[in-house]
Each structure stands twice: as C-alpha cells, then as structure tokens.
C-alpha cells in the first residue's frame, strides 16, 4: 500500500501546481517598481506643448498615471471605464500618450472624450521605458509620497477598479 501512496501523493501535488499554472497569465510580468519611487519626468503637455507637466507637481496627492495611445486597441475597451471614473471625481487621472503622434492623440481624445486632468506626450517612449511599460494600456497608482503602489497591466476594468484600484486609492488618501 505504502508503495503506491508516495508516488500518488507526488502526482497529486505536481498536478495541483500545474493546474494553478494553467490559470496564470504569462503576459503579466510583476513590476519591480512596486513600492519604489515613481521615476520622475517632465514632459510637454499634449494639448499645449508650450506647457510642461512634472511628476513632482503631484507630491501630496494620490493619483493615477494611465499610459495610453491612439493606436492601442485595448485602450478602446478601457476608455468608457476611465470616463466613468473621471466623472466621479474620486482620484485625478493623468494620461501618458505613449509613442503617439500628437495630432492622432488629440483626435482620439476629441472623438472618444477626455477622461484625463491632462495628458503628456512621450513621443519617443523613453518615460515608458523608465516605468517598465511593455503593453499599453498600463495604469499606475501613485501615493502622496510619489511611490508606485500598484500597477495594472492591460485595460482597467470595472472589476479591477472595484476590487483593487479604488480600495487602494481610498486607503492611500486616508494616510
């Protein structure tokens, strides 16, 4: 009896691990930037390139940085969710227009609505590299001290807002 028990136990444990592995998303690479200071940047604003926006300006506030682009397909899926969030005035959402032409980005916001307090242009994608962006859209929750607390890879959904982002924002705003 014991002879067969051990191989069986090992098989069940291994099968359990493999089964969990099946449900994981290999596209979601955990960011090493969580709980690290958000890389500082100063960029031209999308609507008015003569104006600059610096991430340092946001010290003392909890805010979301949403990386988007007019060429990004999943951004279309995310867009209504962000519009809804913006209308609730819970947390300011700033946009980083990633590797996009200025006119395309502006046209996209004109057509679909603009959920952002303001957007900045990262035409070359350099700030994107600093933030470890590899699949647009991505959204960062940044706290009052300018530390990245959470990163949403892929579109923000109603579910991820309700379960992850908003509870975290509420907690960070209380601090």
């Amino acid at each position, binding site marked *: 009896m014991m002879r067969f028990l051990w191989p069986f136990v090992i098989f069940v444990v291994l099968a359990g691990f493999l089964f969990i592995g099946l449900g994981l998303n*290999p596209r979601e690479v955990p960011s090493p930037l969580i709980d690290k200071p958000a890389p500082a940047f100063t960029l031209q604003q999308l609507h008015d390139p003569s104006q600059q926006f610096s991430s340092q300006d946001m010290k003392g506030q909890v805010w979301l940085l949403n990386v988007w682009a007019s060429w990004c397909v999943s951004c279309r899926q995310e867009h209504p969710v962000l519009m809804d969030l913006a209308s609730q005035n819970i947390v300011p959402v700033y946009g980083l227009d990633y590797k996009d032409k200025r006119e395309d980005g502006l046209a996209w916001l004109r057509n679909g609505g603009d959920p952002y307090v303001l957007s900045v242009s990262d035409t070359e994608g350099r700030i994107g590299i600093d933030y*470890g962006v590899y699949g647009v859209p991505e959204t960062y929750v940044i706290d009052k001290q300018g530390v990245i607390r959470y990163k949403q890879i892929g579109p923000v959904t109603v579910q991820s807002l309700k379960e992850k982002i908003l509870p975290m924002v509420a907690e960070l705003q209380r601090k």
Partner: protein
Amino acid sequence: MKYLLLLVMCLSPTYVFAGEAKDLAEDPVLEKRMIVLAEKLRCLVCQNESLASSHSELAEDLRREVREQMSKGMDDDQIIDYLVERYGDFVLYDPRVKGSTLLLWFGPFLLLGGGGVMLFYQLRKRKRTLAETDAELTPEAAQRAAQMLNEQKDTQA
C-alpha cells in the same frame, strides 16, 4: 548553367532572411556588442524572442537604449541592472542566483541526488533478497519445485 541558376535561386532566400532585426548601425563594433548582449535578454512583448531578434517596437526602443548606454561607456552589467530595475528578472534568460531562484538552479541536482540515494537503497535491498533466495534449497523445497516444473511441462504439452 540552368543548374547553377537553380542553385542560386535555392540559396538566395537563406541569405535574405538571415541575420537579426537590424537598426541603422553607426558603429559596427558597438552594434555587435549590443547584439551579443541583447541575445541574452528577453523581449517583453514577444516573450519567446530575444531582444536581439524581436521586431516589436519596444524591442527597437530598448536596443536604442542599450546602444546609447554603451556609447556612454556603461558596461554590460550596468546595462543589465538598468533593465532589471525597470522590467524585473523576467528580461534575463539566465535568472540570477538568489533566495527565490535557489530551487530553480539547484533543484535538478537535488532530484539527481535523491534518485541516487533511492537507487542505492533499492540495489542493496535487491542484493539482500537475491542472497536469501540463492541459499541452498531444503530437500522438500527442491522436490516441490521439481514437481511444479513438471506440472507446467505437462500442461504445455
């Protein structure tokens, strides 16, 4: 002549598709160094391709970044650190040896060692059972064995 032409036609596509994804190289030495390093790094967009061979935009940007840092005089380890800081250990094809990767690096040796120990005990046990069964048969046992063998012969016949 016809065969020569055929040969050229057969071989030419291999030349057309050979080589890595190219960017304009100003300094061929630096470009070569960049490719060697980028082959050790994984592209995050097409995850089974190296940074050297990927055609994704992010890979192009990252190659540009690596190239720039090399021309600034940073060495390979510094550049790898720079990328790991942003994208995590995932960009490395060879994960670093640290607490969370110990099992990954040394697990196979652990299994090999475990297998060796098991094999050793199994062989020892087998040797012991063989030694026991090899012992001289008692006359009764020998007679019974002969009887059983005869019975088998009868049924086969």
